[in-house]
């Protein structure tokens, strides 16, 4: 088995378009990660597989690019005050337990129901999580945007902790209370552990733990969106580093693929992180919500395919199956590009306004000195 994988890793002949594609998708994925804390894996892993990379090598190589990217992103976001390191480490460590449990469940399903069963499980997890959390996040983002448009809201109002968060702040469990600087409150780690666990569980199931990690920090712990997305990078770093080591222990990492993705993604992650300084918290929710809802459609399209493979519904026409598969991948890529478009739009607008403001500032100070 080990030899087969080694052979497979060595046999992948990287074409020029493979290299360019990985760098480009890496850049777009990095841009989104730098902004919302995670993203890109749902396009990168299937892309590598379509290049002929074995599934497990694609997952391992993606993970090997994810943790250095998350590290660079977290360091950058920390400069802007967007990272709660203590929360990130606690959530990250509990996420590790979630990853192990999630992987165990995956293996069990694969053993009992085979590949189609495993794929169906992943798709249903996607549909449930994205259908509930994604729609909630998106609705909340639209609400905040409408609030601001009407001139009713300010940033502090928008980022008010939820009722659940307020309740958690009131619960005092002796010996378990930890002070988190992002919320300036003490919360029992008994509440943060399940959140981290769920993040890891989801990461092991659908490869993007941030879809639970970020919303749970925002809505359950009351962490401001910008800090939640920055802290997610710390969680991603811990999960990615441990995961990479685990895969590398079995020899599954193709370092060339990982470093090619990293080549583009570090340009993106820096830009995405810079982008967060120009936006308000709801923009994080908007980008995350949009991605989640579009991917929901993508995974939903695949459910009939897996159901037919399991024999639970009548078999589908192969042409129809291939059409569904291609459409699903295209919709995934669309999610990433729509998110990148929103980030770029805000970044360009922000930079333009900043430049205009700086010119005005300079003119104002020159006027003062001449007086």
């Amino acid at each position, binding site marked *: 088995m080990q030899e087969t994988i*080694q052979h497979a890793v060595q046999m992948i002949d990287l074409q020029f378009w493979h290299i360019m594609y990985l760098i480009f998708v890496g850049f777009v994925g990095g841009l989104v990660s730098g902004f919302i804390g995670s993203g890109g894996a749902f396009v990168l892993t299937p892309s590598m597989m379509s290049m002929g990379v074995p599934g497990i090598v694609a997952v391992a190589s993606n993970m090997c690019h994810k943790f250095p990217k998350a590290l660079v992103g977290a360091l950058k976001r920390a400069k802007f005050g967007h990272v709660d390191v203590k929360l990130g480490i606690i959530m990250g460590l509990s996420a590790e337990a979630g990853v192990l449990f999630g992987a165990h469940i995956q293996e069990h399903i694969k053993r009992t129901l085979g590949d189609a069963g495993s794929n169906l499980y992943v798709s249903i997890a996607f549909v449930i999580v994205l259908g509930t959390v994604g729609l909630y996040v998106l609705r909340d983002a639209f609400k905040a945007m409408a609030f601001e448009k009407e001139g009713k809201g300010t940033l502090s109002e928008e980022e008010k902790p939820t009722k659940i968060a307020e309740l958690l702040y009131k619960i005092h469990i002796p010996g378990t209370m930890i002070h988190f600087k992002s919320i300036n409150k003490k919360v029992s780690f008994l509440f943060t552990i399940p959140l981290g666990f769920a993040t890891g569980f989801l990461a092991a199931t659908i490869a993007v733990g941030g879809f639970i990690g970020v919303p749970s920090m925002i809505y359950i712990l009351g962490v401001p969106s910008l800090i939640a997305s920055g802290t997610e990078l710390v969680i991603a770093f811990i999960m990615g580093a441990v995961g990479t080591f685990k895969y590398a222990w079995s*020899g599954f990492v193709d*370092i*060339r693929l*990982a470093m090619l993705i990293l080549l583009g993604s*570090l340009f993106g992650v*820096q830009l995405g992180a810079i982008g967060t300084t120009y936006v308000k918290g709801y923009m994080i929710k908007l980008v995350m919500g949009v991605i989640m809802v579009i991917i929901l459609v993508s995974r939903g399209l695949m459910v009939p395919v897996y159901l037919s493979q399991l024999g639970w519904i009548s078999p589908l026409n192969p042409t129809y199956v291939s059409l569904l598969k291609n459409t699903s991948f295209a919709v995934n890529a669309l999610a990433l590009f729509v998110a990148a478009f929103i980030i770029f739009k805000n970044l360009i607008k*922000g930079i333009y306004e*900043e430049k205009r403001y700086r010119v005005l500032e300079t003119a104002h100070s020159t006027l003062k*000195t001449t007086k």
Partner: protein
Amino acid sequence: MAEKVIKKPVGKFLVFAGITCILYYLLFAYESLINDYFTRGKFYAFLPVLTAFIFSYTHGNTTDLFWKVVGIEAKKRREVK
């Protein structure tokens, strides 16, 4: 007071970009040898992890400096929240 002219870190960028280019060149020039060792598993697992850290340092600095040289920087904090 007039706005200070910010000097762009071109030299530093070129140094990090140069190191990163060398690292990528070495990675692909010796790809079969590297992949052979890196996929041996067990304690060889430290090799890809260590490589990722080295690349994240050099290329992380390159990309950080690149956007600074290009002129894309974070918003200056002004308002007190």
